[in-house]
């Protein structure tokens, strides 16, 4: 089926996220305005105006009340999802690279880039407190000599946070522990971890890395479960909520792509979650795919690219009929 093209951004897309019901799709780009769309027909519902730099990350809470965005303008903002008004504005000293709401939606976690002057931090705020109150948790990552965080998610419930790093490390931080060291620390990738996404039940999560691989981990102890190999950098990976499938998006970096590739050849690839086999691909983007997300009902997915477009794909019947035989 022909995908719905969402043309609302002027620059490359950085993240897209569905709300829990899946009726809305939020998107952020290197331009300053995150957008919200109806996922059913691709109509734009509104924009969130207020940032003064590229927006690197967004998240929406489970009730679609609060919307969060982190930007290169050194702020992380909490918005009223319905009205587009800024509720809270957290100032940081560095660009905000990744962010996320906790299970209850009461806690907001965000991470900042490290620069020559400033360190990379994990910061957790309680939305029930005021803007001036100090963070609930503050971890100085650079201070512990760890490389910069490039992606992050909440772990199980509200107690842990999982971070992906610039040189391929993945760490699990437990706030119940008194020590500030990460609880688990592994290096499953050799290059930057581009994206981390959880499955529907929060039992496992998938990583995407520039080292051409994507891996599945146990959310509780970041034990590696599966590995999906490709021959291109993987920018994003999502787990289907209904089938044992994963979806990878990526492609060579924009610089290389401009040099070597012809248009329309960037593909989203489907792998079997358990057998690690590739079984389908969708080619339509004109640039590398920066982010992929499954609709919560598993019947459609969206991909967002360096080309500045978001494409909403409804999956054909043949996709649902397909199965890999195993007995």
């Amino acid at each position, binding site marked *: 089926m022909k995908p719905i093209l969402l043309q609302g951004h002027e620059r490359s897309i950085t993240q897209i996220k569905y709300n*829990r019901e899946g009726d809305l799709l939020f998107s952020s780009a290197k331009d300053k305005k995150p957008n919200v769309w*109806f996922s*059913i*027909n691709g*109509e734009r519902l509104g924009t969130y105006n207020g940032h003064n730099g590229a927006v690197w990350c967004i998240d929406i809470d*489970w*009730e679609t009340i609060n919307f969060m965005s982190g930007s290169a303008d050194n702020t992380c903002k909490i918005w009223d999802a319905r009205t587009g008004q800024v509720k809270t504005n957290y100032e940081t000293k560095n660009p905000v690279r990744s962010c996320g709401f*906790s*299970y*209850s*939606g*009461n806690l907001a976690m965000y991470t900042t880039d490290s620069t020559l002057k400033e360190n990379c931090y994990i910061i957790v705020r309680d939305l029930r407190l005021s803007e001036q109150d100090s963070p609930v948790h503050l971890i100085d990552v650079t201070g512990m000599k760890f490389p910069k965080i490039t992606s992050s998610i909440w772990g*199980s*419930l*509200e107690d842990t946070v999982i971070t992906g790093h610039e040189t391929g490390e993945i760490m699990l931080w437990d706030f119940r522990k008194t020590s500030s060291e990460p609880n688990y620390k592994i290096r499953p990738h050799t290059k930057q971890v581009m994206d981390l996404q959880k499955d529907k*039940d929060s*039992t*496992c999560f998938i990583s995407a890395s520039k080292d*051409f691989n994507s891996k599945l981990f*146990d959310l*509780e102890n970041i034990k590696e*479960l599966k590995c999906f*190999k*490709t*021959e*291109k950098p993987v920018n994003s990976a999502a787990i289907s909520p209904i089938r044992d499938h994963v979806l990878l998006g990526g492609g*060579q970096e924009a610089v*290389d792509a401009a*040099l*070597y*590739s*012809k248009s329309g*050849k960037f593909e989203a690839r489907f792998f079997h*979650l*358990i*057998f*690690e086999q590739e079984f389908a691909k969708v080619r339509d983007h004109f640039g590398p795919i920066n982010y992929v997300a499954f609709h919560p009902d598993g019947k459609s997915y969206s991909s967002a690219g360096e080309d500045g477009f978001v494409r909403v794909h409804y999956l054909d019947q043949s996709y649902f009929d397909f199965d*890999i*035989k*195993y*007995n």
Partner: protein
Amino acid sequence: MVTNSNRNDTSENLPDFSDPEDFVDDISNEDLLPELMQTEPRLDRSVNKIIIIDNIPKVGPKEKKERLRKVLNNLLKNYGKIINDYYPEDENQVLKGYFFVELEDENLAQKAVSELNGYHLDKMHCFKVNLFGDIEKYKNLVIREEDIGEPAPFKNQGNLKWWLTKPEAYDQICIQHGENIISVLLNTPNGPQTLISREKWSETRFQWSPKGHYLCTFHERGIALWAREEFNKFERFSHSGVQLIDFSPCENYLVTCNPSRAGVDDQAVIVWCVRTGKKKRAFSCDRSVSFSWPYFKWNFDDKYFARLGNDCLMVYETANFSLVEKKSIKIPHIKDFEWSPANNYISYWVAEHNNVPARVVLIEVPSKTEIRSKNLVNVVDCKMYWQSVGDFLCVKVERYKKANVVKDENEKETLRYSGIYYNLEFFRIREKQIPVDSLEIKENCYSFAWEPNGQRFAIISGEATSRTTGSFYRVASPTATVAGKLELIKELKNRAVLQISWSPNGQHCVLITSASKQQAASCHAEFYDVQSNDVILSNKIEHEHMTDYEWDPTGRYFVTYVSYWNYRLENAFIMWNFQGRQLQKQVFDKLYKFSWRPRPPTLLSPEQVKEIRKNLKQYSEKYNALDSTRQRIVSQEQLEKRRKMMAEFSNFRRIAAKRLAEQKVKRLELRNGVDVESGENEVEEIEYTVQFLVETKKEEVNE
């Protein structure tokens, strides 16, 4: 003593220098005045300046002797002044066939011995030259029993053809990938299986020998050959800084080259014996001709090797590793040459010069007799293509309509050609007097390739690289009534192909757009089945960013791959069957090089091959049965593997589910008692209308 006393008279204080009465002179003159004594004249008894030259003509008449002496003196004039010569005669005043010469310098005598030994005065007389002193030395040579020693113990070379004697006879593939890992894979029906894999096996790259017996690896110190089933070291050839290698066609000799030492010393190019590992001869790279690799071109049976010199052709023989008949073949303005792959023929061409037309010449080696030649005019360049069994020679002649002399900024005159067109000249070697046919091509001619072992060939021509024509021709054999000629089989117009790759067994041919080192907009290949009077497209395939391609030695598979050396992403190889159907794709983290292991030619006689072809049906039945059994086993294995993976993952899911159940209370608490999983206590659904754009129409409204 009287004189002394007289001097004492003149000066009272001078001491007395005279020897005492009982003085004995115990210091020799040599000790006292070594410099002076060196120059003392001595009788020269050394015989090292005398050489004996054997095998001169045995002539009798006086004037003939004089003439011979003149000739011989002329030959020796490069070695200094002749002090003395002596020609022994028998009782009839006929020369005994050898003579003695005394030269003025020992070093020059040495030089004369090494250079004149083996010199052909004429067909009958080949010199044997020795130092006179050596005769004495060899005469007294006593060979003692203990000097001979034990013969070297027999060294078992192992089975170098082991991979062909396996019942499955899977072809082997060598690949270089990852962080400098070289792996040898078996091409089994179920995909490649790693046979052996070594890290840093080679410092730069690897290469198979032409018949596949050895795998060569490159190192700073030299070349190593690996063979046998264990791939253990067969031989080492130490040549520091080696960068280029070339095998003789029968793998008897290996030529190694360190181009950075070209012209610097005489160890730039070395020829080795592969079996013994011994250095046969080293060459300093000749800088008078432009360097190209291979430096030497070998004849078909390793007997001769040759290279282009300055206005000459230098043909060496492996019997003694020196020039055939001790001299190069003088050919003014020679540009290039090629050996026939089946006979000791050399084809070469000479450029136009001073209104003398260019010539393509075919000579026999070592007799140097000219078999055939053809004059050509208006020639820019020639390329020679021998058919694989030496039945035909095609010379691609690049010709011009006009040549203008152009002066560049340095007032140097160069020729600029215009109206370039091509002529293909076909020499039918096996026919009487070697008839030549020509074919004219008005456009640019990009590629030419003979069908291996066949009579057909393919040409790619066209005005631009984006619009080319692929043509297939046949060289028809002459019959009793009709002379042989060229027949067009089919022309394929409007292609974008540029390169030709014939299957090693002929009949199947792949035309490729350009597996260039640069990225191509779309890299595709067309598989053709070339029949006796038609050319049928089997399939057209595409492999993005493909940089290289190679047929397997049996002509069953065609592999296209993306090499990391040329393109840094999507390094993978795809194996196609001979009809262009994709069989498998293997993705690598950096794939540098892919190379099939060559197979030596079959040992079966043509009759046996014919017999097998006749009974092909029986064989195919047998092998099909084998294949299907194997396939069944594989799918069984595959299923088993998947079942196992599924079981493992189900196990993880059980544990995760248990964990989820334990957290349920806490989860409910966090979301104020709303159970999102079951949908209980959920907020009432909000209804809203959405609009879909069904169609857009543009209508002009008339007022």
